[in-house]
């Protein structure tokens, strides 16, 4: 062997025992046990759903541990408790958390950790030192089991059914209230053109400005009575705009000319049809209590608002109603002058 060749082969021969002793993934055959030496990947299955089981994560000082998550992380709902914030360097992002304890944990020392996923699932972890016979986690992959998916699906179904049931209950309560309400009974009759069957009489009629561009023609008719405390406003709307108009969004607000405080007035509303298509005509009746609308001295005004349901709740129509719109002539005083 020539001199240069001998020089090169010597370091190679020295490397052979080292390569023979190199670690095989998962099972180091001949190195001494070192609990701080991380394993490659540990898979943990979340079986029972959120908060049902605390998963141990084995950590060691200065050794980074990656926690892989089954979904995106919700950063604000994730953290370490028990004063562990100062004992760990934590990096969070996407579907991973990187934990590095700043120092070794003592035997039996534990730090609770909560991981909240973007879908609302909360996973409870316990950060602790690897027990005897176990290794520090280099990477832990948390995965949902089929059972969890089933439980989560059932839970979502239950939530959806509960919401529906609540909605039905509210609708039923509203329907019962409306069935027993005299104001809704009046509104029903007026919107069907049977005001002559009620105790109310025609008090006034005028056009009200609907929209600046004149795309809505609105005629207002009001009804009142000596005998009843209720008053009614009937609006007939011709929708000449290219947008539909939802009459069921009608709201009445009381405002005092002397105070700035707005106040919503309870009204019984009936619309026919509820949504007026472009080019169509609709009627809406609002029956309310005169005193609730205009105050005990009948010296206030109310604002009538209709909001759009298809353009983010913008104001579609607005009208001002005053006590004079519902005036009842004082026949006892002998005055006949309506103008």
């Amino acid at each position, binding site marked *: 062997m020539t001199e240069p060749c001998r020089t090169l082969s010597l370091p190679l021969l020295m490397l052979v025992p080292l390569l023979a002793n190199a670690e095989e993934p998962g099972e180091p055959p001949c190195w001494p046990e070192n609990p701080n030496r991380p394993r490659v990947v540990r898979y943990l299955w979340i079986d029972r759903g959120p908060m049902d089981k605390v998963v141990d994560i084995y950590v060691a000082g200065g050794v980074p541990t990656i926690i892989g998550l089954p979904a995106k992380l919700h950063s604000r709902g994730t953290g370490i408790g028990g004063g562990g914030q100062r004992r760990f360097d934590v990096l969070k992002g996407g579907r991973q958390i990187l934990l590095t304890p700043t120092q070794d944990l003592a035997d039996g020392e534990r730090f609770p950790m909560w991981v909240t996923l973007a879908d609302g699932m909360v996973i409870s972890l316990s950060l602790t030192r690897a027990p005897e016979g176990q290794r520090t986690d280099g990477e832990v992959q948390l995965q949902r089991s089929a059972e969890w998916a089933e439980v989560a699906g059932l839970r979502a179904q239950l939530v959806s059914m509960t919401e529906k049931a609540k909605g039905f209950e509210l609708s039923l309560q509203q329907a019962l209230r409306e069935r027993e309400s005299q104001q809704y009974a009046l509104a029903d009759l007026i919107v069907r053109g049977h005001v002559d069957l009620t105790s109310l009489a*025609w008090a*006034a009629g005028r*056009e009200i400005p609907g929209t600046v561009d*004149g795309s809505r023609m609105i005629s207002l008719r009001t009804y009142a009575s000596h005998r009843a405390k209720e008053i009614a406003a009937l609006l007939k709307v011709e929708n000449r705009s290219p947008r539909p108009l939802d009459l069921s969004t009608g709201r009445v607000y009381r405002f005092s000319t002397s105070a700035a405080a707005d106040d919503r007035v309870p009204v019984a509303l009936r619309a026919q049809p509820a949504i007026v298509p472009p080019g169509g005509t609709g009627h809406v009746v609002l029956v309310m209590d005169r005193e609730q609308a205009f105050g005990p001295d009948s010296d206030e005004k109310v604002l009538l608002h209709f909001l759009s349901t298809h353009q983010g709740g913008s104001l579609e129509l607005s009208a001002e109603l005053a006590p004079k719109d519902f005036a*009842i*002539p004082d026949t006892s005083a002998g005055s006949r002058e*309506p*103008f």
Partner: protein
Amino acid sequence: MLRAWAFLALCVGCGVPLRPDGSPVEEKCPDRARETMESFGLRPGDHETIYIDVNRQERGPLVVYDGPIESVTWEPMKNLPGNVRLYGRIWTGGPRVVIRYYSARLPDGKVIPFCAMAAYGTGLGIPKTPGRPGSAAVESSLAFVSVMDRFRAGPVPLWDLRQP
């Protein structure tokens, strides 16, 4: 028949005497008007929205003149269908513009006697801004028609048109 009623609509009201304030005096309804309107379920006090001038249906103020007028209803009124032409006469000389309707033409072309008045605000008649003699401006092209049992004169609140 149609021509006859149209002629009547133009002529009826021509000779109605005026009150001192310039508005027309009380007047009877045309013959058979009440019975005809009752056949459509209409009773005194029933009311509906109209365009005052069939040729001016845009929103906004309107100038009206003494003389015949053709209005149009907006929608059905009891059993009377919508889009009925109303023929009558305008008086602008009084404190309010008075419009009396003597006949109506149904969408199928049939002409019937009619007895109704225009209303706006809180009373019969329409508030006006005085103009040249024989004309007046009203604030809206919309008004209301109210079925009458007779053509009434002077200030009449809508309240008084209520059903018995």
